[in-house]
């Protein structure tokens, strides 16, 4: 295979970076609105819930686009991995997708009728769907990190019930906790008065929830799946990344206490990115590892599209990413500041 390189890295590595970047963007952006949804039922008053929904109202749809771009990036650059992952995770993914549908519908439909029972029912749908989505994302991530059995055609060769193993469940809970913390911090930036005070407290509580589940997951990994940290044992220089991540986590309650919610939000965004960088370093160059028969694993080379397609994709990303960045910033800038309800609000 002829490898073209750019800045010392071949195109497949570059596309892996692009894909990782999109996934991080998705986790950071949809992470806070999924988190806001997951903690929705902790808010009691109808008015509070309405403000919380409108805090994500104009942007959640744009955030979800990152999932579509991520799916497209995987399909385009690494079709073998795309095919294997989605046919393997058939059941969790269907639940994930039904969750996505119901969540979007709940946001859209909730405000359309004034009756309390109507709104309360959609609140429950919205919250449960957000939790299910976060958990299933974490569950799939956990299984990708651990690896799943693949056959010689690089297709899943196991039982889907095995996805519900302790490590994947721990990752799922950690993901949910991370999103809830991230979402609570986001909402503090968008709210005022009593609701704001409540969210400040929730942000603290969810930070504790996250730290506890993260520590348990880490301990479990080090004790029972030690090979997942092989990379960091053999590359001590990269220890800076877990170090940075720990500092970034520690900075969250510090900034929340000081009332600097924007910095707290940036710290939790950095935490998400650093966590995913750690995952990427651990799995690289595998996209889907097959622990039973490692020869069947899918890597960024044997699971990739042709060199020509990857080159086209990189050009598309090069043109498209600044554009997306530009109008995403414009939209966020338009809706900056505290939520103000008007006649077009949800």
């Amino acid at each position, binding site marked *: 295979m002829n490898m073209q390189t750019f800045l010392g890295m071949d195109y497949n590595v570059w596309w892996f970076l692009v894909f990782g970047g999109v996934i991080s963007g998705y986790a950071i952006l949809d992470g806070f609105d999924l988190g806001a949804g997951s903690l929705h039922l902790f808010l009691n008053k109808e008015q509070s819930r309405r403000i919380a929904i409108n805090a994500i*109202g*104009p*942007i959640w*749809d*744009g955030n*979800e*686009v990152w*999932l*579509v*771009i991520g*799916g*497209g*990036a995987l*399909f*385009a*650059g*690494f*079709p*073998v991995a*795309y*095919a294997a*992952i*989605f*046919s393997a995770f*058939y*059941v969790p*993914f*269907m639940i994930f*997708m039904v969750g*996505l*549908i119901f969540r*979007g*519908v709940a*946001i*859209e*439909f909730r405000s*359309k009728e004034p009756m309390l029972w109507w709104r309360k029912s959609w609140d429950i749908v919205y919250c449960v769907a957000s939790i299910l989505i976060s958990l299933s994302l974490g569950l799939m991530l956990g299984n990708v990190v651990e690896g799943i059995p693949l056959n010689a*055609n690089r*297709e899943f060769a196991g039982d889907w019930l095995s996805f519900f193993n302790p490590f994947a469940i721990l990752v799922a809970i950690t993901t949910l906790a991370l999103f809830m913390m991230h979402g609570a911090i986001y909402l503090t930036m968008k709210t005022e008065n009593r609701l704001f005070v409540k969210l400040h407290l929730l942000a603290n509580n969810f930070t504790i929830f996250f730290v506890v589940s993260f520590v348990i997951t880490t301990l479990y990994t080090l004790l029972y799946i030690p090979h997942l940290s092989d990379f960091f044992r053999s590359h001590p220089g990269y220890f800076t990344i877990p170090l940075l991540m720990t500092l970034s986590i520690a900075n969250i309650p510090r900034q929340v206490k000081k009332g600097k919610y924007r910095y707290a939000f940036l710290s939790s965004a950095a935490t998400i990115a650093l966590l995913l960088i750690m995952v990427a370093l651990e799995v690289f160059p595998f996209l889907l590892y097959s622990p039973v028969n490692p020869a069947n694993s899918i890597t960024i080379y044997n699971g990739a*599209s*042709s060199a*020509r*397609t990857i080159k*086209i*994709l990189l050009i*598309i*990303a090069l043109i*498209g*990413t600044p*554009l997306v960045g530009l*109008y*995403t910033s414009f*939209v966020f800038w*338009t*809706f900056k500041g505290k939520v*103000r309800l*008007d*006649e*077009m*609000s949800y």
Partner: protein
Amino acid sequence: MDVEILARIQFAFTIGFHYIYPPLSIGLGLILVIMEGMYLRTGNKIYEQAVRFWIRIFALIFGIGVATGIIMEFEFGTNWATYSKYVGDIFGSALAAEGIFAFALESGFLGILIFGWNRVGPRVHFFSTVMVFFGSLFSAVWIVVANSWQQTPAGFHIVGQGMNARAEITDFWAMVFNPSSVDRLLHVWIAAILAGAFLVLSVNAWYILHKKHLEIARPSFKIALTVALIFSLLQLFTGSRSADGVAKYQPAKLAAMEGHYDSSARADMFLLGYVNKKKEKAVGLSIPGGLSFLVHGHFDAPVRGLRSFRADERPSQVNAVFQFYHIMIIVGMAMIALSIYGSWLWWRKKLFDKKWLLHVFVWGVVLPQIGNQAGWFTAEMGRQPWVVYGLLRTSDALSKTVTANQIIFSLILFTIVYIVLFILFIFLLNRKIQHGPVDHGTKEEIEEGARRDNPMLEH
């Protein structure tokens, strides 16, 4: 039932349901751009109220379109893993481009469209409306390019053998502009615009019949009627170009569309009829030699028939392809007839006098929907047994690891979810229509707008 038929039913069901919404977004997008442009130019509050009203409906339609569309993107991977590997190198780049260029543009600016009225100025808002419309047009580009490549593959070569064979790009632009891309894209775009126009016509016809919001309903109706007239006539042209393309590149599909079996005979063009599969003959009301004329320019020229294709290389459901194709044409003609008749009455200044016509327009909203679905079924069933024409069979394209039970599980799940979704959609759409375009406190401004001179839209 086996995995193949279940997976096909699931795909047809989920794509068919999805395909109600994006065409409406595209068509409504154009109407929003026209209405808001007129508001910016004239400053007439009537258009502002109309735009605000249709944006609320647009948001509802767009929301369901996004939710059901995400399912489609991942369904390739869940149910059609072999297909995904086969076409990933080609299809993937189109899909990635759709995500990054079209979908992000649309969703990003939609927030401003719906919630930005008090946050940005009217020009920036208009710009956002135009961007949302462009975004929806672009998203149709990539998905139709990908589908057209499956109909008429170009710009690729095959690498590997057996189960590991896959198509790789050799020429990106030849792939994008494959022989059927442009014709099919124009056909899809125009069909989408008609879907939007007939929705606006339907709602406003209902208002006029019930003597509600007349100041807004009449000019809106006329805008939509103009759009419907222009685009239903243009559709004749793109439809005939598409048929030429099918004749040239997919002769088995063409033969199935007209139920033509005998290669040595002239081919008729049917208006109505059915295919008798046992006798291998289509019967019904037809123009003798019409298809021969379409393909070769002579009424007596023979056209290649289904019998000349091996049984496993031609569509098995010939009658279904035949019926869907003719339903599409009948519906298209009905839209042209309605638009021309309505425009003629408008010219005679009698547009809103004929109550029966307004009733027809109220129900006319289903015409483009039927046409869109029938058109896609013709295109997709007519391509069978191939998923990539001449290269990859549908039966080979499945996910090898997914079992029939898993598909039944998800099919039941989707059926329930989509039925609930559809009921809620109709319920909310109805509520929004009943509420109408007039916001509180703006009635005087509307009446003021209605009094102002507006020669183009004068009754």
